[in-house]
């Protein structure tokens, strides 16, 4: 029986709300985008046909941009800490990456190196998602708003970047969902981001040891 009791607040209400908004937007954007890029009527018809699917795609894109923007403006300090965390790679992170934190079946790990609030894999994912979102936004709005005035070659480039970034992000988010909601070692975190924000202190002490120690020092 572990000696560590209680719960740790990992994600506050606004963060969870932003995550929900982004998740719902991402699903709608992914579905509608796939529907009209590959001309899959069975999907686009859910949204009222290709033209309406495009309309939903574009306005969901607006929400996809404004949701996190409002969150960042209201929580700038927290967001700065998040960026600081995901952009800081320690020796422990490198060591964690070498063993993939024990998540890969054929690499046996007795005790994964201590991790920050986000493990090295989550840090990389966070960085890629931010870069991906920026690319999607920076190409998506010109494709919509300046489609008549942009040169054809530039428009084509925007479509290619937008499409391939979306494909990579769908794969990344798929992996993120598997680890966060299905994988037996880590699915305990699912409720933290999607529901009350709390994680068992015992799990945190194991998965995010460095951060847990920091929290204890503060207390």
């Amino acid at each position, binding site marked *: 029986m572990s000696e560590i009791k209680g719960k740790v607040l990992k994600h506050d209400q606004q963060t969870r709300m932003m995550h929900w908004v982004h998740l719902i937007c991402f699903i709608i954007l992914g579905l509608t985008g796939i529907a009209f890029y590959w*001309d899959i009527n069975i999907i686009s018809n859910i949204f009222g046909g*290709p033209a309406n699917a*495009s*309309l939903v795609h574009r306005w969901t894109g607006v929400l996809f941009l404004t949701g996190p923007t409002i969150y960042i403006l209201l929580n700038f300090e927290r967001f700065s800490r998040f960026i600081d965390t995901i952009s800081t790679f320690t020796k422990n992170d490198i060591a964690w990456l070498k063993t993939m934190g024990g998540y890969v079946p054929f690499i046996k790990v007795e005790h994964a190196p201590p991790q920050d609030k986000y493990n090295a894999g989550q840090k990389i994912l966070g960085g890629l998602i931010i870069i991906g979102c920026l690319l999607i936004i920076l190409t998506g709005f010109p494709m*919509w708003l300046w*489609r*008549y*005035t942009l040169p*054809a070659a530039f428009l084509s480039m925007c479509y290619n970047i937008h499409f391939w970034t979306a494909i990579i992000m769908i794969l990344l988010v798929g992996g993120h969902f598997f680890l966060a909601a299905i994988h037996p070692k880590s699915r305990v975190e699912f409720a933290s981001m999607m529901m009350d924000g709390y994680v068992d202190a015992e799990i945190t002490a194991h998965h995010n040891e460095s951060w847990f120690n920091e929290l204890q020092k503060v207390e």
Partner: protein
Amino acid sequence: MSTVIAEGVIHVTNDCKACDHCTSICPTGAISGMLGQKHHIDPRLCVNCGQCLINCPFGAISDASSVEMVRQALNDSTKIVVVQEAPAVRVALGEEFGLAPGTNVKNKMYAALRKLGFDRVYDTEFTADLTIMEEGTELIHRVFNALGVEGFESSGPLPQFTSCCPAWIKYAEDKYPHILPHISSAKSPQQMFGPVAKTYGAMKLNVDPEDMIVVSVMPCTAKKYECDRPEMIASGFKDVDYVITTRELAEMIKADGIDFLNLADEDADKFIGLSTGAATIFGATGGVMEAALRTAYEILSEEKLDKVEFEAVRGLAPVREATVEIPVKALGTKLPVHVCVVTGLKYVDSVIEDVLAGRSTYHFIEVMNCPGGCINGGGQPIRRDTY
């Protein structure tokens, strides 16, 4: 690629990504479809210019092709196949083989056409000269009619519009039928070549015109529509049988494995191979105007021009105007000829409306659909790196 011109020349393929870029390119609003929805071209409104085709970011717009029919004719030993090439083709074809835009490859082009199997290789420049002599003379007659000179009462009204751009002609017919009396009655160089080849040409070559196939190599997709117009049978046969574009010629040369860049230079066949520099400049905006002014000047003044260039009508602005003083020997006076050059049908509406309302001060108006003229036609090589 379609092989039959059934419902218009230009059509959107299934590769359409519904980006909606083409609707801003189309000068007539013929393309329908919202962002995200596959687009469609209404052949009734489409002027077949192909500007949407060369500007589609995904290459998802295509033109009907007669290449297979041309191949069949070339392989048919009972047919004599003659070919003409427009001035704008020779300075663009090289791009398909890696040469810089503007490189004149006419002598290699003639050689390639012979290697492809064409029996006679002529040049459209000769009939561009015919067009301009007709159009220039017609302008003079209309001016004389306007001045009340006796004997010209049956000539049409001023201003006179040019007639060699088939996209412009279809646009005028569709949208401004009342402007038709102002349009020159001269056929385009392509359609002058057809009957000349099938009458005089057939006679000189001692062949039955029924066994003659006339092929055009054009920078323009609208020329495919023009050759199919039912009235284009002055020779008693279809005057021009098939039109292929600069792109399609390049495809044929590549498909036959012809080493284009290393071909020895050849000349066009001679009997209708002679032409003037005025014919060559037809391919650029203002070119027809400049050629007509040269003709009108020499006929009216009865003087040889020392400097043949009328640079006032050159440029790339969509609407340009100039006044050229032409001495009229028969009247003993100088006539200020007000001219206007329009490149891009999007800009022609106000010019036409002024003419129809009697406000226009112009005598002669050149209209070309494609920006910059035929040189930027819908059948030219697609160079995405230059966008």
